[in-house]
């Protein structure tokens, strides 16, 4: 039981990332390989806000998320918008280039030092079960953010515009939707979510320029496991993967658990490529 409890929040970081990836993929058919680097930038933003002005990491979300939204907006406007309609390989190469540039830039600017600060440690004990405090806080914050993003997509005007663009850019354009702007908003939100994931990650892990890659592969797995373009799907996918990984790691070893995760992914692709959730067709 402890193992399952530990596995639940583990999926959470991956859910944030996969949510953003899914959004970008849904709206633009672009797989963003630089997403992990946006996480890294978010983590650094929060780290420096803490070190320089002593800002509480959770409050720093208020600064780091709009900041990352801006970064995403600019990235979309200057770079990604040029490859939206190009073949998939073009956007893969472009975002991979962005990923390398950001990693290298971070190494030059922030140095390769491992950065971490003690914040929120220990566990909350309920009966025999120990809930990690930093993970719990990260998890709750993440749930709130996911809820907010889901609300935005489902209920607001721009959310609807985003979904319309995702379903068919041409029809959306014909209906008078500013699809370029919709795409910039989508990329901005996805980047802000990655930044938030980075900020929350910082409670748990060490910050360094190459941290993004650590999370990316699993985020892709989560994205496939959940449904493409579905926020709750990404969330469920992340949690299922987290529990599978932590259980496999308990029963066997951490190395085998790593393999089990990707075997699950393969099995999923073969047996149920549409993910856990089948989206209702409009």
């Amino acid at each position, binding site marked *: 039981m*402890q193992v399952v409890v*530990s*596995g639940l929040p*583990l999926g959470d*970081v991956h859910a944030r990332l996969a949510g953003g990836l899914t959004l970008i*993929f*849904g709206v633009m*058919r672009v*797989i963003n*390989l630089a997403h992990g680097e946006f996480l890294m930038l978010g983590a650094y933003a929060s780290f420096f806000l803490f070190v320089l002005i002593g800002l509480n990491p959770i409050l720093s979300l208020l600064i780091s998320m709009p900041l990352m939204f801006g970064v995403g907006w600019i990235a979309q406007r200057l770079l990604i918008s040029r490859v939206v309609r190009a073949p*998939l*390989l073009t956007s*893969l190469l472009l975002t*991979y280039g962005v990923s390398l540039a950001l990693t*290298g830039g971070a*190494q030059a600017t922030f*140095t*390769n*030092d*491992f*950065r*971490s*600060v*003690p914040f929120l*440690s*220990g*566990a909350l*004990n309920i009966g025999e079960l*120990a809930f*990690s*405090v*930093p993970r719990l806080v990260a998890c709750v914050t993440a749930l709130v953010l996911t809820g907010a993003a889901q609300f935005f997509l489902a209920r607001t005007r721009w959310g609807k515009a985003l979904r319309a663009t995702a*379903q*068919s850019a041409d*029809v959306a354009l014909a209906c008078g939707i500013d699809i370029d702007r919709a795409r910039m908003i989508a990329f901005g939100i996805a980047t802000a979510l990655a930044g938030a994931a980075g900020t929350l990650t910082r409670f*748990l*892990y*060490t910050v*360094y320029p*190459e941290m993004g*890659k*650590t999370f*990316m*592969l699993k985020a892709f797995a989560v994205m*496939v496991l959940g449904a*493409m*373009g579905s926020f709750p799907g990404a969330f469920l996918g992340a949690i299922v993967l987290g529990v599978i*990984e*932590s*259980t496999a*790691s*308990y029963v066997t*070893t*951490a*190395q085998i*658990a*790593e393999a089990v995760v990707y075997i699950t992914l393969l099995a999923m692709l073969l047996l149920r*490529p549409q993910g856990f959730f089948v*989206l209702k*067709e409009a």
Partner: protein
Amino acid sequence: MTTRTRRSILAGTPAALGLAGLILSACGGDAGESAAPAAPATGGAPKGAPVKIGASVSTTGSNGKTGQYQVEAYQLWAEQLNARGGLLGRQVEMVILDDQSDPTVGTKLYEKLINEDKVDLVLGPYSSGVTQAVSTVTEKYKYPMLSAGASASDIWKRNYKYVFGVYSVAESYFYGVIDLAKKNGLKTIAIITEDTAFAKATAAGTAEYARKEGFRIVFQEQYPTKVTDLSSLITKLKAAKPEVLVGGSYQPDSVLITRQAKELDLNVKMLAFSVGAAMPEFGEGLGKDADFIFGPSMWEPSLKTKGNSEFEASYKKKWNREPDYHSATGFAGGQILEAAVLKAKSLDREKIREALSTLEIETVLPGKYKVDDTGIQLSHIPVVIQWQGKDKPVIGPDAMATAKPKFPMPEWKSR
């Protein structure tokens, strides 16, 4: 319309993901070259062309942070050497490249150093993985190499004649910690390690020594590099109830293990990490949770070794930061090479190889430089440090200790 779109998403995805994986795994093409010439000549009349000494060290990639210390030490050594008049009356020019923490890139760069840059001598790269790969190149061209940043004993198990150890092999890192545990009457030990060359060697050596000293190994497991969660492993450790827990690990995983041990209330009497614990960033990342944790160190600034305080002062002056033990091993590598050239009285690489295999000198490192027939380092003495408040004093071996060990580690709940 919608149906078609969705199907095309799904059809595209597996292929795209595969491609993404390919691209990710193919990273590390050609190395960025950052040739860093040594400081200009000061004093001493250079005779003829400068002596070129080549090395490639990871200054980017996963080991970039640690490798940087080694590069700084190489450059400091060359600068001081030139100020003393150079090698055999000739100035020294360092050619330092970056292998991006990639063994394959490392081998290419040593080929380049030897064939294109035509260096006279080489110094070793950082990390056991890169050194092991690179030593096949230096062996092929018969270039003697001091392994100033690597210590997995596999490097010396191939009957190579041209690679020499500077500091203790990875296998012996925890000997001091185990001695201390034995002295305090502890009987059971658990060993968890990352699955990389260095960490696995540390684990194997620790297990063997612990068994010899009468310990029972109650748990032993490896975890993948770049792990982000070890709660299952910690849960299993709790069930195994070890008195001593050692981790063959770097900074991020050492911090992760400590944090999760606290969360899941895993209590041991002694906790030690290999590379991670000796780094200043370990204490910064954990604050007071770092207290009581042990770690081996190849060098500490407080040691009274030959020329140590001068080394520390000049390093701080030149690079504006405290040297790490990786700085000291790099600097010692230079000191040993210098002594070997003086002994050989020439730049003839066969004579230098000869000199390196019989040389016995003191460096800034504790103990001595003296290798056996295989080139393995036997006379260096690693020390044990313990985090106590903001400091990490040397607590063993007794002759070099600057503080008493605090023992045992209290339970997390009572801290």
